[in-house]
């Protein structure tokens, strides 16, 4: 098999096709939800809705264990906070602040930005991978998570895990020839992009809805969301 040609395919046409499906799929999801309609709220506000939204997003980010409103839940389910937090932190660092990924963004958007040193990004990638492994074990062993998880949840995990592990294997030249590892990484990325709009991984988009709704609903009541 001509791996170089395959790599060119997964990096080129397949990647752009996947990207298009991803964007079209997300737009479809957005439109589908928006088309369901929104009622205007007629009740009188006690507090500021805009202020509520700002606080809602701040609270969404401030998830460190020593913060009072996190403490209670953290003590009961620390694994979800630590492993989930490390996973997302690592994921975001790698795809936005790793040099190779920034270059992809640059080719798509036309502009780039400063990135972090490789060893730093590398450690966060390891943290993300370990986080994901912990999360899957937790999901299989915890009674609540088992109840909540069906095939879709496990596939989500797998289709996000594959790009991460293949990316790691590629950068560290493990097991496979470089162009093979690279092809597998691209293949899994392409597949993930296609999968996201049809799965719960699209939570990153609806996050902005739910946090905004929460801010409005509770800001209106003059309660910090």
């Amino acid at each position, binding site marked *: 098999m001509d791996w170089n040609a395959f790599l060119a395919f997964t990096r080129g046409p397949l990647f752009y096709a996947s990207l298009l499906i991803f964007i079209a799929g997300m737009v479809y999801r957005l439109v589908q939800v928006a088309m369901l309609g929104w009622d205007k709220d007629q009740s009188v506000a006690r507090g500021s809705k805009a202020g509520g939204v700002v606080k809602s997003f701040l609270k969404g980010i401030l998830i460190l264990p020593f913060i009072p409103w996190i403490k209670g839940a953290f003590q009961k*389910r620390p694994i979800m906070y630590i492993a989930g937090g490390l996973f997302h932190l690592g994921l975001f660092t790698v795809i936005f602040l790793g040099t190779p990924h920034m270059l992809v963004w640059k080719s798509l958007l036309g502009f780039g930005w400063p990135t972090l040193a490789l060893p730093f990004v590398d450690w966060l990638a390891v943290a993300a991978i370990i986080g994901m492994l912990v999360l899957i074990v937790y999901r299989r062993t915890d009674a609540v998570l088992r109840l909540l998880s069906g095939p879709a949840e496990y596939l989500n995990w797998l289709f996000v895990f594959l790009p991460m592990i293949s990316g790691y294997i590629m950068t560290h030249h493990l097991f496979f020839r470089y162009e093979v590892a690279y092809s597998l990484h691209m293949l899994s990325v392409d597949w993930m992009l296609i999968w996201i709009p049809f799965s719960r991984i699209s939570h990153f988009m609806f996050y902005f809805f*739910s946090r905004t709704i929460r801010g409005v609903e509770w800001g209106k009541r003059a309660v910090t969301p």
Partner: protein
Amino acid sequence: MQAETAINLFVKKTGGWVASQLEACTRCGLCATACHYYEATGKPEFAPVWKVELLRRAYEQRFTLVGKAKVAMGIEKPISDDDIKEWSVYDFHGCSMCNKCSFVCPMGIDIASLIGAVRAGITAAGEAPAGLVKKTEVQLATGSPNGATREDYAAWFARTSKEMGKELPVDKKGAHTLLLLTNLEIAGFPNNLVAIAKILDAAKIDWTLSLEARDAFNMGTIIGNGKAMKQLADKVYNTAVDLGVKRVLVSCCGHGYTTLRDKLPNVMGKPLPFEVQHIAELMGVLVRDGKIKLQEGYFANGHTYTFHDSCKIQRAGGIMDEPRLVLRQLAGDSFHEMLPNRKEAICCGGGGGLRAIPEAYDIRMAAFGLKVDQIKKAGADTVVTTCSNCRLQFKEGFEHYKLDTQVTGLAELMSQAIVE
């Protein structure tokens, strides 16, 4: 058949507001840490997100490609009649609609209102707990869920007038404030009326009671029957408009307050021509603005007080500072906080109609056990509340746990300490 009715209702309830929140859930299970019924039972089915599962399934299967694909592939089943029966237990016996879980959800999903939609579907399908169905019927027929009639209220008002040595205003046209009581007070602590009357008089508020709109309770809200909710709330609306009042003042009732404040304007499709206020807020405002002077430390008398944050009045009503201001003046340092408190407080376990579901007695008392722990840790011998339903739950809970801890209402304390 039942399932179909429920699904139709779910579909009707699903606007973008609901759908975008259902889509945001990552199924992380963190909301379980918030729920006192999950905590009390340890059953994963009582995790808040699981209580919304029926709605999620109905939404996905009806509106999304993924949902349709899941059914086609046999990964997920359409909602069945048995499902409706099963979830009736989770959503009615195991949820007080306390809203605490939404404060824990990392995605910020307003889980309780989604559970409200599930309740509505279950009710439409005829699987709401019999106790709640009965109370709804009784309230629609008599005006109060416990069957208290116009005559009962008239007798209570007359009795109280006699006791106070002054005629209480009833259906007085042009009054500024309409005071709305509850059947819980008439049955459990009729003296609350004396207390509130004293406070309103001391503040020189032009107020009135009504024999038309008598009960702030709204079984329609609790059971999730929109038509009943509107019918009961309409009564308040029409009376308030007839009397021409500027404000409807809700006495110690939580869901009655949020129904009138947050739900009624949306049912009407327009803002209300009057303000809706809870007595817990008014008490604090009167003291803060100097309209009423209290004898400071009147209750710093060897007892130790703690304040219970009710889900609908404090957490969902936002009225957390005002009652504390009053209690702080009354009890000074003998007022101790429970932990956690304010919007993170745990529910007493008796809200959301649970007190009217005999089958839920055990879980309700198990959840109350968490409250008992908190009270003990706060070192309090008296719990103060601004909600009559919580108050009854505390009373029954203390009896159940054979404790001699007391529970009382803030209005009753405040009315005794007013400086003329």
